[in-house]
């Protein structure tokens, strides 16, 4: 079963995303900030897709993407930024760091699942 790594500092958002993704048949790993995300990756979690917020404490989304791209197993893993930010500057910054795509909140469950499905069709 495909694993999705979800990173968001809002517990409600993490629970909500987990519910939507598990309901669609994905396994979900979670973290409350970028640092926890990196720990998951270095501990051996191999997600098919990573969903990350941008504004998080300790290590934000951009920092997480930069560090994740240095880890061999996630060098090419699709990373989708899910955030309230829709500004061009932040988007460019995320893309430069290695983000694969962008979803602006509020997103619809189907929109989210459609993107995830496209990125790991072999679920």
């Amino acid at each position, binding site marked *: 079963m495909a694993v999705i790594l979800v990173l*968001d500092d*809002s*517990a*409600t*958002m993490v*629970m*909500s995303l987990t*519910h*939507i993704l598990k*309901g669609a048949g994905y396994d979900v790993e979670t973290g409350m900030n970028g640092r926890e995300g990196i720990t998951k990756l270095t501990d051996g979690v191999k997600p098919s897709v990573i969903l990350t917020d*941008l*504004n998080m404490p300790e290590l934000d989304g951009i920092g997480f993407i930069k560090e994740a791209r240095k880890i061999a197993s996630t060098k090419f893993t699709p990373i989708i930024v899910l*955030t*309230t*930010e*829709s*500004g061009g500057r932040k988007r460019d910054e995320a893309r430069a760091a290695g983000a694969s795509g962008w979803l602006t*909140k*509020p*997103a*619809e*469950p189907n929109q*989210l699942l459609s993107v995830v499905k496209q990125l790991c069709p072999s679920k």
Partner: protein
Amino acid sequence: MSGSTEANERVVCAILAEQVAALRDRMDAANTFDLLWRTTALLSWLSGLLNDLSTQQPSPNPVLERERAEAVAEIVEIRRALDELAFFQAQRQDFAKQIADCVVTALERMAIAEMPPGTSFSSGDLAELYVSKDQRELHDAVMRRLST
């Protein structure tokens, strides 16, 4: 501005920061979301159960079978709508908390007693705290209104 006026304003900012922080903490609706998700899980289970019961009937009653199919279709639709509602509300709550975080941070900075006399917290300083386009657009609208 006199020293005592500045001191009073800092006290007001400190109190307002605490009040907005308390308001932000009350926004937590985890119990509501938990109930919504449990409801959708229960609906899933019920529709599966109805299907299982139907397949175990050697000679199903056509009327009951039609009603079962209608009930399952309705359950699926309600589950989809509840999932969507919960997801939207979670995102809205997250957004509202981010705005409250921004106000709390701004008020806390304005309340710092050690700030050198005459130092102000500018609208530009405030804009540095934003985390969404909506906040920036609101900021710009207020700035335009105040400048006319």
